[in-house]
């Protein structure tokens, strides 16, 4: 028994472990192959977060999903005992018999039915329609309860997004703790009680009450049963949240000991700016968030004194810093220039990435364009190196070729006669970006391009880009730097309004032509077409080919100018904490930070 629960079990308030586990728990192999050891149970991990909203990371770290990725980013059933996928059209899920929610109530098909019928498709609960991962050509699936432990989702067309959405760091909610939540649903609850509850929580009506009580991802309601390894025990607002192990958790180690090993996770809330300092003084047992490469030396100095080890993980984004020419900018002069691939290539060639890498990352990062990372099966060398070498001559030649003449001060002139003063928008939040821009500024000066930086707040930045008011912006590369062909290539394709290089096209595509601007660049249009093919493709080979083609187009067209990739981030791990991989990829999707590294198998001395 886990130390935390032993008392309760003795007292009889909690059934013994054997009764709490599903009939067929998920057995995790914790062995040398993954560099791990079987641990003992108990202990507390302290970690630091900066706001209440960060609690959702516990859902990410916990990473109990219906289906989940393993370290090699292969999908496996996790909460599910198993599933069948018929050509991405019919998905049949089998639940684990005897699997219970953290409050001991059974986890059954009813929880799927409730979510589907009473929440997702309920008229009163109208929430802006079904999630896009559930829609194919605007149509949702057919849902069936086969038996108490089996459910099925059926689409007429293939839906390749469905399973990845379930395995995502932010999972698609298709089940919920119905036994608990029914008390907040008009269909099931006693109206008076419901009304009283609505009044107590100061919400407008019962639907909102239901939403509030049922948000499993945000992890704010300590009463909401969960399937994650740890459950929140602290009501908000608070500065210290305690998560305790889920007594009914479905995973065991190979010796049959119920996971997680660690009894408690304590999250202390602190301002993000002092989290490196706090971590360096040993106030966190496991910290990745809010640390940056620049903190490494400082953290390292505290290692001995505070008994922790600093590791370096690789950031899983396509690039640490990338520049996005806005192909939809309102400024016609700039738009024309940006639409000219030669111009984009020239800008990319004109950046001395080696120097940036040396100055800012001591040469430890990789220089290259914004594409997938070497860790991805889709990676090829030429993708990263395309137009990424430092070649000012070639760059100048390209610019000359476009016909951009220099004025007396050495600044090139746009075709309409304006000097080439390129204003880059930034959120000004990261000093890394600022430093990179500083270095790029002097590189580009040699090209006759004058770079100016302007900062605005994150949301203003976004809305300005989306409105076409900016010419170029700086941000990180694609979020998922290590996709397999099964992942949607949408980040490389105009698909959503938040994309910085083609916001209008993204809007156009995502709204099926209701808003935004029609994609009028052949290469970009090609990307859209490829994406559409990917969506209906049925076999992995086709998808792989589509992916490759998309990446080639990107490498050739330089739609975004990546600068450094595979940057490093320190992860501080207490020396008492075991099974944390020495190296890893730090990313939200698909790794879920510690998620795929199975945080439930970490253990404390």
């Amino acid at each position: 028994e886990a130390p935390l629960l032993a008392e309760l079990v003795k007292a009889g308030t909690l059934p013994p472990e054997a009764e709490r586990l599903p009939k067929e728990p998920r057995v995790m192999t914790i062995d040398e192959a993954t560099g791990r050891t079987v641990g003992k149970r108990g202990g507390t991990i302290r970690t630091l977060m900066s706001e209440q909203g960060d609690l959702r990371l516990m859902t990410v770290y916990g990473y109990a999903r219906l289906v989940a990725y393993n370290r090699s980013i292969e999908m496996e059933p996790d909460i599910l005992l198993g599933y069948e996928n018929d050509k991405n059209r019919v998905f049949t899920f089998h639940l684990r018999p005897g699997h219970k929610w953290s409050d001991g109530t059974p986890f059954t098909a009813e929880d799927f039915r409730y979510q589907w019928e009473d929440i997702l498709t309920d008229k009163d609960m109208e929430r802006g329609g079904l999630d896009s991962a559930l829609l194919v050509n605007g149509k949702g699936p057919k849902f069936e309860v086969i038996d108490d432990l089996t459910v099925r989702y059926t689409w007429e067309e293939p839906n390749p997004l469905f399973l990845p959405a379930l395995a995502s760091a932010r999972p698609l909610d298709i089940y919920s703790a119905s036994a608990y939540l029914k008390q907040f649903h008009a269909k099931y609850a006693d109206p008076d009680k419901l009304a009283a509850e609505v009044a107590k929580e100061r919400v407008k009506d019962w639907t909102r009450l239901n939403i509030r009580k049922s948000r499993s991802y945000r992890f704010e309601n300590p009463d909401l049963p969960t399937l994650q390894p740890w459950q929140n025990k602290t009501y908000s607002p608070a500065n210290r949240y305690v998560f305790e192990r889920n007594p009914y958790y479905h995973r065991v180690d190979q010796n049959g000991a119920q996971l997680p090993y660690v009894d408690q996770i304590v999250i202390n809330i602190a301002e993000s700016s002092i989290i490196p300092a706090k971590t360096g003084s040993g106030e966190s047992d496991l910290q990745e968030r809010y640390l940056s490469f620049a903190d490494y030396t400082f953290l390292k100095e505290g290692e001995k004194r505070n008994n922790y080890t600093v590791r370096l993980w690789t950031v899983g984004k396509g690039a640490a810093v990338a520049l996005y020419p806005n192909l939809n900018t309102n400024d016609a002069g700039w738009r024309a220039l940006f639409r000219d691939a030669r111009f984009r290539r020239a800008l990319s060639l004109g950046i001395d990435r080696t120097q940036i890498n040396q100055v800012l990352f001591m040469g430890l990062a990789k220089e290259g364009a914004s594409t997938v990372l070497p860790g991805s099966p889709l990676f090829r060398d030429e993708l990263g190196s395309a137009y990424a070498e430092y070649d000012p001559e070639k760059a100048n030649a390209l610019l000359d070729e476009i016909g951009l003449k220099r004025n007396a001060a050495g600044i090139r002139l746009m075709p309409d006669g304006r000097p080439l003063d390129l204003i880059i928008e930034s959120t000004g939040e990261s000093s890394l970006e600022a430093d990179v821009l500083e270095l790029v500024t002097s590189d580009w000066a040699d090209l006759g391009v004058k770079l100016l930086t302007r900062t605005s707040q994150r949301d203003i930045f976004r809305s300005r880009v989306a409105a076409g008011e900016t010419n170029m912006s700086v941000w990180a590369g694609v979020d998922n730097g290590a996709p397999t062909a099964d992942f949607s290539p949408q980040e490389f394709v105009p698909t959503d309004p938040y994309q910085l290089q083609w916001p209008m096209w993204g809007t156009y595509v995502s709204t099926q032509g209701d808003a935004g601007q029609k994609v009028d660049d052949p290469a970009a249009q090609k990307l859209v077409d490829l994406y559409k093919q990917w969506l209906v493709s049925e076999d992995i080979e086709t998808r792989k080919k589509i992916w490759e083609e998309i990446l080639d187009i990107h490498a050739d067209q330089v739609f975004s100018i990546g600068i450094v990739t595979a940057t490093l981030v320190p992860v501080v791990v207490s020396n008492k904490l075991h099974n944390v991989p020495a190296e890893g990829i730090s990313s939200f999707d698909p790794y879920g930070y510690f998620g795929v590294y199975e945080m439930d198998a970490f253990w404390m001395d």
Partner: protein
Amino acid sequence: MVYYIFRRMLMMIPTLVITSALIFAIIEAPPGDYLESYIAELKAQGEAVDTARIEYLRKEYGFDKSPVERYFNWVGGMFVGDFGYSFAYELPVTAVVGDRLFLTVVVSMATIIFTWLIAFPIGIYSATRQYSWGDYGFTFLGLLGLAIPNFLLALVLMYLANVWFGTSIGGLVDPAFVGQPMSWAKFVSVLHHLWIPVIVIGTAGTAGMIRRIRANLLDELQKQYVTTARAKGLHPFKALVKYPLRMSLNFFISDIGSLLPAVISGAEVVAIVLSLETTGPLLISALQQQDMYLAGSFLMFLSLLTVVGVLISDIALAWLDPRIRLSGGVRK
């Protein structure tokens, strides 16, 4: 007097109405709304954003309504004690602010007391011993506190306190005590942490106080009535406190109106650097995230305190100096 207070209370109403409109405008001024900053935040994490869902939320939060309508909803709510709802916390504003208020008051009061305890004696000393070594020394120290940016001082002190005394970094209490009931150990831990913000915020204000007290006293010390007091054989210090000091307090009293809201709002930037669980950082983040009801209601609370503070300051002024008439305007 009673009549005067009553009249001033009445006058508060239009003032507060105007302030509320202004506050609302200020919060609305930045383009975008809470959802946009929420999206931006998600994007920064690398999380996906579902456009349809955002549209739904926009309606849900009432962002589709006209600002005027939202303003009246908000103000109307406040009249019946409903201060609105924090989007970021998903909690009623009162619940969010509640806990932090107490800590803020603790920090602010400690700071104010610290400032006064230091500024008054030094100010008096500096004025009476103008150009002595002490005067120069204190001036130097005070200005040092003023010239070093708060956040830097905070950072350095915090770091040194950790290295030298092992005090945990930031916050008002060791993390181990957070959420625990008050105990002696916790109290000691609070004291260990409290001195940093008190010194950082305090030093910034002290220099100003010292210099102003000194300047005002220097002016008053020359007045004939001081000589009169001396001629009575009054101890110079008592004479100082009773006559010139009281007169030179004029500046101090006239500005106590801003003290009350300052107690509650706290020094935001320092609080952020030191990660204090006070209202300051809460307000800033609410503003930055455009969590409008949280920010708005809090600001309204501050403005109420200001208005009351100004009234108190006016009454105190009239008490301090009988030449000043409460009604202010009436000519001889």
